[in-house]
């Protein structure tokens, strides 16, 4: 109702002002993709009258009916237009290909050729044709230098890094900016990476037993609203966004109303069916039991849950539920747990544009089921964008997005206590349907409420996925109002106020009888994040001589970010059948996080000099004032400088071979501040004292009032070539980035009274190479084939930590067998584990190295590559994306656990016993003691070096086959498109057994390179139907 009212208001607003420009011809200039072209020149033929378009591609000019307007823009074909009465032109310039325009920092559209740094842009079609629930995942393989790692399941976040990890303990993930507004990517309070032991705080997912990986910011953006995405890769490109942009920026531009005066209606429906892309390979010869024999008696309490029993020969044997049953293999028991997840995404958009402005409204409904029953995601996204041209000089641009989402039964899937583990480790003779009876019918006593599973204190996957409850509700409002005023044809200014308000409510209930929390427990968490930005930008664009053009920008921004939250946790339900707080016997002291505010004020300026369409020089300067730093340090400045030169006219003036030869170089620096309350030492009152007494303790971290911002500096060189009538394009970039003064909790001697000192230390470098190669292989009227190839490699090195600290442990697996570390001379995410020492104990068991002391690899891949293709034949089109990740290692704790449980196909080896080749430490001589397969695999599974795999994999990531349906005037259908799409179809090759090497335990830095019972990677097959009326 409210929304309707708002819509009506907007429409009224727009119509009221639609009749102003009587004697003035006005219009909007866009490129073929609908991106507005600023600075295009409009002149009246045979006169001195001329103007240029403003930042939103708009212009107005005095002209008489019958006059001819010439619209020109560098890199685009000129267009002539005859002025008619009441003219309001929507002018689309056709690019002559080399002069691509991209959206850069602060939303400024720039000719790509004028940039001295690397920016990649992809269109909305690239991310909304084959939809993933998280927009971030749709970027995989499409941009050189961008790495996406997934974690968790439906509604979960992803880790987004550009050009490697820059920060040791801080955030290394890219900033997400939507229509110029940075959006908050914070996870619920307390879910700050879960790295309690190490002090690291890179956002995203806990490495504990049950990682709950929040959705993050980008997951809330509706792919259908995306017009284009620019990836600003290095500090040079992103310096104007300030502190948070040191890790690069994903700049999302959403759609505005476009097209003609006519009301455009687009209806899109996507239906996908998801299924597991692959599952681990299980053995089907041996059943539940131990020591090579079936289990004997459940009531004895010595029931083994592993598949180290006897041969599955169909004999009658005791079954976990107390009955006796045929001891036979159930080859599909894991597969049959999963159902087909149907995802259905429907969006409707209405748009209209006129001289008076434009409006676009869209609504998207996402109703998605997962491959596990009861796990569902439902979201509604309302988006309203209205641009009103209030006068020839004054434009108001407003946007309001409301997003509401509920995800049920997402958590508790992964990690040691997740249900995937309990499912995979299920004995090979257990029928999955039997496990559907996970609790006694009509339980009476507390013990009768206990979970029924195939082993003691082992969760039942049905109980965990369907009986326990978990829901996360997200509500998000994003909006802004922007006023643009064009003082003169060369001076333009805008001011904008925007807000991003996110509310997250997270409920989790373990029901009484749960295998781990026997009396049941419940947690309820509420977090709110608000980010307000007020900004202005003044732009002057002046053509000094016919060769020298100068654009100068001066701007300022006030950013206020706040977070607050509350956590309630309790256990022991009074009445075991209802689940709410008041029904808990024990309610732990509530945890309140009062509103924490961070303010950053900034002023910035940029100058772009263009000389003779061949030499471009950009300089930017920004000064931030951060409330999180002390008075002496809070003001910090950083600069960027870049240069590009178009050399074709010297090399190949006739364009016989080269259509574009461009070289570029840039130097930039970005500062990175910290969180609130990091300066002054305080004491915390524990929620509950001891014996009713108030107790106090020091914080383990000694704060530092002299904390400085981290500094990322980057040097980048690039070359761009376009050849053979622009049929082949090549863009090569090399960069060298260094981060110094890393804000880090340095472990200190306990004698200081602290465990860590927060200091600025160290130096981390990232060096890399990015290549983008594009080719038009076929370009016929009826048949075309475009292909592009992306390659990026990055080498990360921890150059220096601090004297006396050679390495830092991010995280240790729960079994202590593997550590993720940063070591001086190594790189962030080095994996250390145990290897077989070549010795056995007296009993013949293989011995592993004492602790996780051996370097086994690194979590970061050596290179990433993507190959995308679009082939069009008449109305048919075929697109596919193949991408590869090469190098980098991952520890598959999944595989170790499957071997230990005796369910993996690998564990069929040595069932008859093995004499381990090595020195027996009992005798000192060669080992002669024979051990059983059970003993062998139990011991080997503790030696993590056996389970570190290369992340190498090549997969058919995306495939779509489309057909454009011709116009059907009778029903008002302008155009329509039907597509058959698929995602994660198959692997061409993969090194790791059992796991998808890109599915990590979480999105925080400390769990990269670790995979433990991740939800199966989904293979999606779907149908898209798009209709434009």
């Amino acid at each position, binding site marked *: 109702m409210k929304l309707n009212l708002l819509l009506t208001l907007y429409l009224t607003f727009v119509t009221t002002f639609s009749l102003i420009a009587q004697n003035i011809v006005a219009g909007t200039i866009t490129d073929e993709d609908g991106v507005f072209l600023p600075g295009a020149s409009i002149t009246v033929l045979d006169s001195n009258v001329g103007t240029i378009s403003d930042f939103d591609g708009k212009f107005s000019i005095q002209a008489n009916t019958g006059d001819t307007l010439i619209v020109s823009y560098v890199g685009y074909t000129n267009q002539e237009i005859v002025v008619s009465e009441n003219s309001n032109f929507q002018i689309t310039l056709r690019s002559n290909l080399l002069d691509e325009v991209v959206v850069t920092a602060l939303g400024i559209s720039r000719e790509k050729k004028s940039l001295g740094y690397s920016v990649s842009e992809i269109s909305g079609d690239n991310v909304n044709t084959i939809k993933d629930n998280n927009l971030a995942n749709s970027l995989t393989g499409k941009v050189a230098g961008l790495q996406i790692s997934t974690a968790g399941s439906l509604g979960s976040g992803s880790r987004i890094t550009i050009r490697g990890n820059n920060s040791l303990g801080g955030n290394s993930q890219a900033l997400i900016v939507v229509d110029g507004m940075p959006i908050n990517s914070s996870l619920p309070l307390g879910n700050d990476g879960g790295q309690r032991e190490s002090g690291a705080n890179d956002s995203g997912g806990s490495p504990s037993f049950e990682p709950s990986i929040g959705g993050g910011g980008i997951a809330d953006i509706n792919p259908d609203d995306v017009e284009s995405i620019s990836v600003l890769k290095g500090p040079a490109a992103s310096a104007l966004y300030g502190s948070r942009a040191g890790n690069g920026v994903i700049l999302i531009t959403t759609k505005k109303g476009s097209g003609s005066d006519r009301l455009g209606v687009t209806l899109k429906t996507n239906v996908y069916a998801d299924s597991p892309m692959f599952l681990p390979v299980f053995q089907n010869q041996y059943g539940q*039991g*131990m*020591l*090579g*024999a079936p289990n004997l008696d459940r009531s*004895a*309490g*010595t029931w083994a*849950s*592993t598949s180290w*029993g006897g041969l599955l020969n169909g004999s009658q044997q005791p079954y976990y539920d107390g009955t006796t049953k045929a001891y036979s293999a159930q080859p599909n028991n894991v597969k049959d747990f999963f159902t087909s997840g149907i995802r259905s995404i429907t969006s409707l958009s209405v748009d209209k544009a006129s001289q008076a402005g434009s409006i676009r409204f869209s609504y998207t409904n996402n109703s998605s089921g997962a491959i596990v029953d009861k796990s569902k995601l439902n979201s509604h996204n309302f988006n309203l964008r209205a641009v009103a041209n209030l006068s020839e000089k004054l434009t108001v641009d407003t946007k309001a997005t409301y997003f509401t989402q509920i995800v049920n039964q997402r958590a508790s899937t992964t990690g*040691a206590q997740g249900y995937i583990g309990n499912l995979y480790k299920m004995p090979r003779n257990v029928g999955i349907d039997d496990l559907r009876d996970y609790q006694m019918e009509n339980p009476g006593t507390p013990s009768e409420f*206990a979970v029924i599973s195939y082993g*003691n*204190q082992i969760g039942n996957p049905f109980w965990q996925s369907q009986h326990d409850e978990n829901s996360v509700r997200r509500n998000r409002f994003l909006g802004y109002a922007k006023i643009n005023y064009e003082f*003169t044809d060369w001076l333009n200014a805008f001011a904008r106020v925007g807000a991003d308000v996110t509310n997250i409510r997270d409920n989790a209930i373990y029901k009484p009888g749960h*295998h*781990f929390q026997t*009396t049941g427990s419940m947690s309820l968490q509420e977090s709110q994040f608000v980010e307000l930005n007020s900004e202005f930008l*003044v732009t002057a664009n002046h053509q000094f001589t016919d060769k020298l053009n100068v654009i100068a920008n*001066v701007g*300022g*921004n006030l950013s206020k970010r706040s977070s607050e939250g509350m956590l309630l946790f309790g256990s022991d339900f009074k009445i075991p059948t209802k689940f709410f707080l008041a029904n808990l*016997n024990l*309610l732990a002291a509530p945890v309140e*996080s009062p509103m924490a505010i961070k*303010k950053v*004020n900034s*002023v910035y300026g940029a100058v772009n000099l263009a000389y003779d369409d061949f030499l471009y020089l950009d300089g930017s300067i920004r000064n931030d*004032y951060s*409330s*999180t730093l002390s008075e002496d340090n*809070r003001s910090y400045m950083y600069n960027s400088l870049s240069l590009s030169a178009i050399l074709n006219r010297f090399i190949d003036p006739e364009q016989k071979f080269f259509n574009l030869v461009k070289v570029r170089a840039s130097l930039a620096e970005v500062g990175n501040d910290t969180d*609130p309350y990091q300066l*002054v030492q*305080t*004491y*915390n009152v524990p929620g509950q004292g*001891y*014996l009713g*007494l*108030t*107790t*106090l*303790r020091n914080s383990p971290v000694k704060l530092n009032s002299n904390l400085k911002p981290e500094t990322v500096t980057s040097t980048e060189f690039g070359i761009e070539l376009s050849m053979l009538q622009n049929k082949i394009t090549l863009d090569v970039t090399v960069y060298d980035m260094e981060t110094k003064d890393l804000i880090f909790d340095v472990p200190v*001697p306990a*004698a*200081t*009274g*602290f465990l860590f000192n927060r200091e600025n230390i160290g130096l981390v470098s990232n060096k890399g190479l990015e290549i983008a190669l594009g080719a038009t292989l076929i370009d016929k009227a009826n048949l075309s084939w475009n292909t592009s190839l992306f390659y990026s490699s990055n080498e990360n090195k921890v150059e220096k930590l601090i004297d006396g600290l*050679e*390495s830092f*442990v991010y995280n240790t697996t*729960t*079994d*202590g067998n593997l550590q993720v570390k940063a070591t001086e001379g190594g790189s962030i995410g080095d994996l250390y584990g145990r290897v077989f020492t070549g010795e056995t*104990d007296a*009993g013949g068991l293989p011995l592993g190295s004492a*602790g996780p002391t051996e370097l086994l690899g690194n979590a970061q891949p050596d290179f990433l590559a993507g190959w995308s293709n679009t082939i069009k034949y008449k109305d048919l089109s075929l697109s596919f994306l193949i991408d590869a990740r090469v190098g980098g290692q991952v520890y598959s704790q999944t595989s170790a*656990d499957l071997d230990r449980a005796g369910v993996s196909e690998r564990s069929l080896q040595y069932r008859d016993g093995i004499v381990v080749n090595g020195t027996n430490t009992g005798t000192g001589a060669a080992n002669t003691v024979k051990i059983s397969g059970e003993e062998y695999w139990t011991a080997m599974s503790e030696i993590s070096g056996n389970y570190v795999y290369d992340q190498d994999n090549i997969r058919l990531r995306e495939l779509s086959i489309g057909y454009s349906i011709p116009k059907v005037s009778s029903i008002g259908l302008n155009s329509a498109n039907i597509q058959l799409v698929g995602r994660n179809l198959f692997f061409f090759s993969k090194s790791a057994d059992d796991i998808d090497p890109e599915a990590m335990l979480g999105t925080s830095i400390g769990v990269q390179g670790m995979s433990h019972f991740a939800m199966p990677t989904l293979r999606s097959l779907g149908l898209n139907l798009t209709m434009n009326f």
Partner: protein
Amino acid sequence: MKNRILILYGSLFLATVLSCTDDFDEINIQPDALSADDISAKFFATNIQQKLLRPTMVPLWFGDVIHPDQFSGQTANGYSGHSLGLDDHAWNGDLGWVYNSFYTDLGSWDWLAGYNSDLTSYLNNVGEGGTLEDEMYFALGLIMKGYYYQLFTETFGMIPYTEASDPDIKLPKYDDQLTVYKGIIADLDQAIEIIGNNTEAGSGFGVLRENDVIFKGNMQNWKQAANSLKLRIALRAHGGAGEDFSTTAVSEAISSGVLADTDALFEGYADEKDIWGGSSSYGDVWHNFSNSQWKTTEALINILKTSADPRLTLMAKPAVGGTIKITKPTAGDGVALIADHVAFVKSTLDDSGLVLDTDYTWVETAADLTITMPENTNYVGLPSRLSPKIKGYMHAKMFSDPADIITQKTNEGKPLFPTILMTSADSHFMIAEAIVKGLATGDANTYYQLGLEKAMAIWNTAPTTEFLESTMGSLTGTMEEKLEKIATQRWLANYTNGYEGWAIVRDTGYPASAVITSDNNDIISFAGEMNGKQAQRLRYGTSVYSSNNTNVNAAISAQGPDNMTTKLWFAK
């Protein structure tokens, strides 16, 4: 004109942006935290006691329950239907006996090494020049420091000590045990001297009363505790290579006055809610996770039974009993071991003093074994360190659980057994030991008897005639026999304090049945690096290899390999 106004407004806006940092300091002050002005020393006193004596689930579970409690020979996890559960593979008969960095790091090393920062910040606050300077509080801190370092060094051996209190030394060297013990004694002497005849600590709002959970602020009791600790360390160091202080320290401690009538016990907080972040009890480990239970050991039960000790029924519960059917394996590796395993079950029952056909019945067929015993009647201890191979035979119902007061969970309002820091019983036993060793004069048996009375009093009982008539009832026999009795009684008096119990066994070799070794992997496991030897120490935390590599390696080359079988300086 209009443009100029706009430009003017624009400039004003710009100026505002630049100058508007007035509230920056204010918003960066955390509203829910206290500054140095809000605090008093007494609040910290509770913290340093609680953190060491009633820690969270992690040190209690991964530390005490898994390691020292089992190594002391008083409790046993393992295959009796009781496997604690992070993951079903983790908690088994080998657990604790096979090195696991996760449990050792989190449960013992991180906790103990990390405690230094709490303690040091306390000592810095109340010490000379500190924000909360107070001599008595400082003395209390020194005594806690002595107790802490005793625990720390007796668990790991060489540890950072002399340099660990110097904030300027980032990478402290590791000191040998002799140096640590000497340092503790020096600290205790300083504390004893500071306390003198004072009875109270602090003044006004800061007077220490109930915030001292151990002695309610009675500084004379703290002085006695210091003397008891000094005596304990002197006796433990006695006879160690290169030590020259124990004789003096023993006589000083005894003459200055040990804890003769008061026990240094730390109350459990029955209403504790935050067992992971605050503090916890054994019962929280026992009850909060299904099957996360342990048993009393064969060693403990049989020692109590042999001397008709009245504490038997107070420390342990009778076995559940009833009809217990054990099915013999018909396939797999277990078939060959049936005879050995059945024999072991039989000997376990017989060794515990049960009489066949009186206390239990035994029916064995080719397929199975049925044992019947009256319900909740027999006391039978579980053998330690059971091999996974015998898992199917050691039925939970045959063995005794610890008493309810030990396994009482928090938050049910019921009393919890306190944490034992130091007892008057131990003081008397130690004086008896000193006399037997010729380090003090007097009648050893008198002190032994006093010790027995005090030790039983903790369990609200007294020595019975039957007990006093047993061999354990009086300090008779050869010197070695006397030392064995004293050690055994000290070990019993420290029941639930696994760290001290384990130290007594390693120091004296008694009780012999608590020295857990194995030479038959089919019954008692010798998996892992220990190869069946006794657990002598825990390995250092893995973090030290990255944070202080040079010094830890120096310690290893002096002390021996960083494994669990390397004997410590004081050990027999």
